[in-house]
C-alpha cells in the first residue's frame, strides 16, 4: 500500500498572484473588521487582488497571546501536499517575512507568511505597521 503524503491546510487571503497563505492550525479566529477593536498589523496591501473585497482581522499564534493581522480580500481554505510546500531561501524569506511558497505541480502560486518569526519577534521589525481597527457602530 503506497504511503499517503501528509496534507497541509492553509487559510488563503486574496487571489493569486497577490494571495497570502497562513497555516490554518495557527489561525485562531477570523473576525470581520467591523467587529474587531484593537491593534492589528496592517497587511491589507498584501492579498488585496479584489478591490471590492471586505476586510478581516485574523488572530494567529498562541491562544493566550495572539497576533492580530488586518487583511483584505476573500478568504479560502487551501489543502496542499507537503511536497508542494517549499521552504524559501533566506535571501527571499528574511526581508519579506515569508517562510514558504505553495507550488502545486511545480507552479509557484502562494507565499506563506512567516508566523513563527512574527510570534518570536512580537512583530518588532516586521514590514507592516500596527494600526488601530475600530468596530463599525
Amino acid at each position, binding site marked *: 500500500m503506497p504511503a499517503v503524503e501528509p496534507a497541509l491546510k492553509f487559510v488563503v487571503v486574496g487571489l493569486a498572484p497577490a494571495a497570502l497563505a497562513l497555516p490554518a492550525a495557527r489561525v485562531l479566529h477570523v473576525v470581520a473588521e467591523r467587529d474587531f477593536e484593537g491593534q492589528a498589523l496592517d497587511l491589507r496591501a498584501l492579498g488585496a487582488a479584489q478591490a471590492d473585497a471586505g476586510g478581516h482581522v485574523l488572530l494567529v499564534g498562541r491562544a493566550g497571546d495572539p497576533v492580530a493581522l488586518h487583511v483584505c480580500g476573500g478568504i479560502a481554505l487551501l489543502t496542499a501536499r507537503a511536497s508542494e510546500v517549499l521552504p524559501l*531561501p533566506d535571501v527571499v524569506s528574511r*526581508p519579506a517575512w515569508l517562510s514558504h*511558497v505553495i507550488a502545486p505541480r511545480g507552479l509557484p502560486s502562494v507565499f506563506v507568511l512567516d508566523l513563527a518569526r512574527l510570534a518570536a519577534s512580537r512583530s518588532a521589525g516586521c514590514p507592516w505597521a500596527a494600526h488601530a481597527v475600530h468596530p463599525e457602530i
Partner: protein
Amino acid sequence: MDAHVLPIQLDTSWFLIEAHHVREVLGAEPWLPIPRARGELPGVIVWRGRAVPLVDVARVLGVSNAGAEGRARTLIVHHDRGVAALPVDAAREVRAVAREDLRPVHGAPVPYATRELDEDGAVSLLIDVNALLSDLDRASGADDDAGR
C-alpha cells in the same frame, strides 16, 4: 589553459559567465512576484522541487530596468551561497576561451564585470556571478547558509 564561458544576451548586449556556475538553461519560467520586493530580487521560481530566487540580472548590471518579464531563457546558476535563477534573452553554447584572452576590465563599465574578451573589436564582459549573488544575499540580511 582555457576558461569555459557561456555567452548570454541581455537586451542588445552580450555578456559572459563562467560555465561552471550554470546548472541548467531553461525557457521562460513562471515566477511568483514577492510582495514589496526590491527590483533586483523580484520573485521566485520552482526548480527541481525547490524554491529558487529570481534575480533580475539586467537590472543589477544596469542594462535595463524593464523587469524580468518577457525574457526567453532562465539560467539556473549555483554560487557559494546557493542557487539562483537569472532571466536572460538568449544563451549560446559554452565556449572555450584562452585565459590570456580574458583581459582585466579597465574602469567599471558594468558592475561585477571583471574581465573582457575583445574579438575583432566586439567586446564581451565576463560577469562575476559569485560576487553578484553573494552581494544580493548579504544585502538581504540572509544568513551564511542562505539558499543552500
